[in-house]
């Protein structure tokens, strides 16, 4: 049995050598997509599909055919390491998650979570990014194979419940500026990216620069995720001289009042929190949990492994003065480490 297999493998290699000298098959010669014909041959088990690319096949068409949706194309790309296939090429397709923790013998996956604030036609200070820069950055993500995933998916990743694409990136926007609607939304919509808005509720509807609850409802309906950034955007760490009781009252206001407003205005509570100024301390975490948040984020400029503590996630702020190179430095998706 084994011998026969080896002989056959040898034959396949010889044939391969043959084929390389033969003229490349023209796509028009076998217009399999044109004629109804039988479904392309595929071997299937509960773990894998092994098939051969048809002319015109892409990770998207294969994902559509075998995984139930083009949005799963990343599974094929990540597993095969390829983004295009030649006709007849063998393609191995995993049918489910094969590495939920993102840990391999060569290191582990890290997910960058980017943080934006305000946008305008022209940059103004660190936190008001020029719309053109934003567009450039988003296009960079698209053309370089990054996959923008939702923050909710990332949180599932930190619970070992969801494998993420190897080049997963999360986008977040802090405070709730109206400019999101004017400058970010059109770009994200065009590229098919999702994002999370962290809003502090005292700011909602406060003047022209702020998004209103109406805006937020609209954005939510359009598939954007709205989460809490406290009530007043105050540092949540216990202040010096603040008594236990005072601190408890303050945290109640900062952490629970947004929940009530979310419930009333958006019909759901917030499960994810962004720490104002990115500041937190160990003693704060039980309170954050107590008010129903399952994940929370600082602005420590680094990516997140799946096994990051969900209440101390990291985000990288993107500043207006950053060049595209500076921006790219925040997109590392893998930490090399010998884990054999």
């Amino acid at each position, binding site marked *: 049995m084994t011998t026969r*297999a080896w002989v*056959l493998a040898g034959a396949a*290699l010889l044939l391969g050598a043959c084929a390389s000298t033969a003229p490349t*098959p023209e796509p028009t010669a076998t217009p399999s997509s044109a004629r109804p014909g039988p479904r392309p041959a595929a071997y299937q088990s509960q773990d894998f599909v092994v098939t051969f690319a048809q002319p015109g096949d892409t990770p998207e068409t294969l994902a559509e055919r075998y995984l139930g949706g083009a949005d799963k194309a990343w599974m094929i790309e990540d*597993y095969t*390491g390829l983004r295009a296939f030649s006709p007849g090429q063998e393609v*191995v397709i995993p049918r489910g998650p094969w590495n939920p*923790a993102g840990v391999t013998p060569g290191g582990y996956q890290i997910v960058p979570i980017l943080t934006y604030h305000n946008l305008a036609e022209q940059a103004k200070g660190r936190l008001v990014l020029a719309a053109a820069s934003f567009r450039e950055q988003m296009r960079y993500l698209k053309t370089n194979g990054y996959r923008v995933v939702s923050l909710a998916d990332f949180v599932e990743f930190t619970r070992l419940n969801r494998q993420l694409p190897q080049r997963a990136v999360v986008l977040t926007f802090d405070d709730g500026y109206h400019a999101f609607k004017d400058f970010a939304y059109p770009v994200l919509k065009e590229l098919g990216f999702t994002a999370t808005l962290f809003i502090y509720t005292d700011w909602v509807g406060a003047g022209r620069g702020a998004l209103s609850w109406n805006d937020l409802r609209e954005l939510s309906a359009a598939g954007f995720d709205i989460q809490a950034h406290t009530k007043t955007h105050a540092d949540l760490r216990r202040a010096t001289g603040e008594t236990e009781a005072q601190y408890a009252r303050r945290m109640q206001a900062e952490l629970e009042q947004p929940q009530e407003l979310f419930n009333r205005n958006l019909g759901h509570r917030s499960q994810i929190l962004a720490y104002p100024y990115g500041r937190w*301390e160990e003693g704060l975490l039980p309170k954050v949990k107590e008010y129903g948040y399952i994940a929370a984020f600082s602005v420590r400029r680094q990516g997140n492994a799946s096994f990051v503590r969900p209440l101390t996630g990291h985000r990288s702020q993107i500043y207006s003065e950053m060049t595209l190179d500076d921006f790219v430095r925040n997109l590392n998706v893998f930490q090399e480490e010998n884990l054999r």
Partner: protein
Amino acid sequence: MSGAARGWLAAAALALALGGCAGMTAKSDPAAGGPGAATARDPLAARHRQQAEALEADAQLRRAAEEWKIVLTITPDDAKARQALDALRAKIDRAVTERIDEGRKALARGVQVEARRKFLTALALDPGNRAAFDALQNDTREVEFMTYTVRAGDTLTAIAQRYYGDRSRSEVIWETNQLPPNPKLTPGTTLKIPEIPGVPFVHPEARRPAPVVAAVPTPDVPRPATPAPAPGATAPAGKEEFTSEVNPLLAEAREALDRNDYGDAIGTIDKFLVGKPGDREGLTVKKQALYGQAKSQLDAKQYSESIQSLTVLARLQPDYEDSSALLKQARVRMIEQHYTQGVRFYREEKLKEAIAEWRLVLEMDPGHANARRNIDQAEKLLRGLEQRMKK
């Protein structure tokens, strides 16, 4: 790009070379599963079998298992492949269990870096393993960092540029060290420079000293009490501002001490001292933490807690700083506190409660004349009241 993906590129190159041929076989294979199918199946399965064997020989067990599954996808009745997969799975399970075990033991010894590595290697073998994942997430702290001594003219961005090649990583140093918004760096103070996943240290001296060696001390050789310089550390003479952190627990305890989290510092240093009883550095940290804790408890008027901390401290070193004076002060204040509490109860006509407070005072200071007198008077009153009640 991950190692797995790189491996797949090689596999894909092979697939490309075969592409033309495979196309031909595929065309003759629409009746896959029919009698003619075996001819197309077998070479395909053979190639994956070959890969599985090669991967297994290279100790890439998880990927080998996947290849066996692919073989079985193509030829589901291949009993030998099934056997090989089952055996491999058992092997993986054993290795994973062993590593988790070792990780837990390392945790118990307080060796965080080793524990982290063990759990990570378990996950590399079985990336869905919840035990390893939970241990890594909840019980293991990443504490690897360098320390840097600030020199005149230093700025956070300059330091970040030197270590990470990226000025904007100054924020990480800022956060790690819990610095104020616009920090002024004082020469001589030390900063922690943490490792940032995905960002290699670029400073030549800042390279992590031989991670594998440093992270996994030989299990049967106890680590020396005074840490020797990490093997493989190549700090050239004359440049001594970079020192690799010695023991993660000790570092963690110091860190807690720096942020005045004395409870955490004491808890952590106790774990450290279990592994290294009597360690001088460890004891120094513990004494500092106890002293700090006692002082802050005193400030918060938690006198009995403060006395407790000072008593533990006195056991370690009776003449530590002004601890004996502090102890006296805490005692006096505690006595005062109970005495005035007694007076308050007395005024509210809660005689029994008042007496209890004053008795506490007498326990601590038997010569407290006022407390004694007050008790006598309160008891007299009580007796009078009780007699009146009876009538």
